[in-house]
């Protein structure tokens, strides 16, 4: 099911961040959002995730769809270990499944460690494992690979593609190469208020090649 954003408006203290924004997104695939910091990408994500209400307008096509959201910050629970941080989002608590996801992000040995004992990159990978374990139909990834080294970054990008083929993935990145590599569609953004200045379909180019 397509995701349609219709005349979305959202202001903070009279300052418009979204203004009459219209956007049609495919039901699945990867859409990269490429734009400067503070242009309104996170606000758009928060509205799609239902964390913030639009002042006016609508987001259509979200009925019955589960949203997994990897925030800019890891937002891990500091009082439980990495495995429990993944397990906590599963419908039925399953330690083995949580461990499997940690192994997938290369942290199989670190399941017993609390977030404070992990590096920034490791915490981000636990947050990625959590998002993938939740298995949403829409996956919002707000700069998910920021703190990772290039090699791990490639592995994580491949993991996201492999495990969420049927989901719509919206990915905020400041890395043009990453966007070209991952995206079926790139939206070049400016703002606030957020507007789309250009659309690009690198997957067509990849297929042509």
């Amino acid at each position, binding site marked *: 099911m397509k995701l349609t954003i219709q005349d979305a408006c959202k202001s903070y203290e009279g300052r418009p961040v979204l203004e009459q924004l219209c956007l049609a997104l495919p039901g699945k695939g990867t859409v990269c959002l490429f734009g400067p910091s503070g242009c309104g990408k996170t606000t758009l994500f928060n509205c799609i*995730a*239902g*964390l913030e209400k639009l002042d006016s307008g609508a987001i259509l096509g979200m009925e019955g769809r*589960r949203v997994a*959201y990897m925030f800019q910050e890891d*937002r891990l629970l500091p*009082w439980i270990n990495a495995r429990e941080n993944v397990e*906590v989002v599963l419908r039925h608590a399953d330690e083995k499944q949580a461990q499997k996801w940690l192994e997938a992000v290369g942290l199989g040995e670190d399941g017993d460690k609390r977030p404070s004992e992990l590096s920034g990159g490791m915490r981000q990978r636990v947050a990625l494992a*959590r998002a993938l374990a939740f298995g949403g139909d829409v996956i919002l990834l707000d700069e998910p690979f920021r703190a990772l080294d290039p090699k791990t970054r490639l592995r994580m990008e491949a993991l996201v593609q492999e495990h969420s083929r049927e989901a719509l993935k919206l990915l905020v990145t400041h890395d043009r190469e990453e966007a070209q590599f991952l995206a079926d569609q790139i939206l070049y953004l400016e703002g606030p208020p957020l507007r789309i200045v250009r659309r690009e379909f690198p997957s067509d180019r990849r297929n042509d090649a």
Partner: protein
Amino acid sequence: MKIFTIPNKSNSPKRSRAAEWGRKCLAALFWLALWQVLYLAVQQEILIVSPVRAFGRLLELAGEAEFWITAFSSMLRIVSGFLLGVVAGTLLAALTSVSRLLYDVFHPMISIVKATPVASFILLALVWIESPYVPVFTAFLMVLPVVWGNVSNGIAKTDRNLLQMAEVYQFGIAKTIRRIYLPSIMPYFTAACTTGMGLAWKAGVAAEVLANTKRSIGGNIYNAKIYIETADLFAWTAVVIVISVLLEKLMMRLMKTVGKKYNLS
């Protein structure tokens, strides 16, 4: 090449614990010595007894069954009031955090309770309820605002980012409380209980004194004052201090264990 490391003995946990105990004993000895000097300077047993006399009297009392019954009865009353205050304060904090209306209703009442002198409450309670329940009521009233204030503060300071995460990942109310609110509130709750326990003992014993409750530490303190038994006064005061400190330590240990077991800290 082999590299040998020599453990730094001065930093070993056993040694530092022994040093800590040593410091504590020295501090205790200092205050006992000061007490003895004061006693020698005053030289009037009606005003101040020597530490040896006070501890001697305490040992004498401890040999009597009545002493233990009295201490236990007081403890039961004050701890009951404390627990009632903790439960009511926590529930009230949860309710007033959820509803602005309830906050507006209860906030003035809590402020009045906080500002009212303990003696006024005790005397009012003496008019309203029977003597044995006055210490329970007084301890309850002393603990309630402290727990309410701290738990409310803990709820208000819960990380919004984590709550958003919980909303996205569909935690539901029970899991959000268990996984986010409880661990966030725990340090505030622990601080409230520590402060509350001290307050409950102070106010509870004062209530027993004023109500002259039968089989109570406060009642014995009152009698010591009436019959000018200064040694008894010191001994019973020491009992209050010892029980209060022991209960506080026990409570802290219990909270630490529970916190560890259920990942609340």
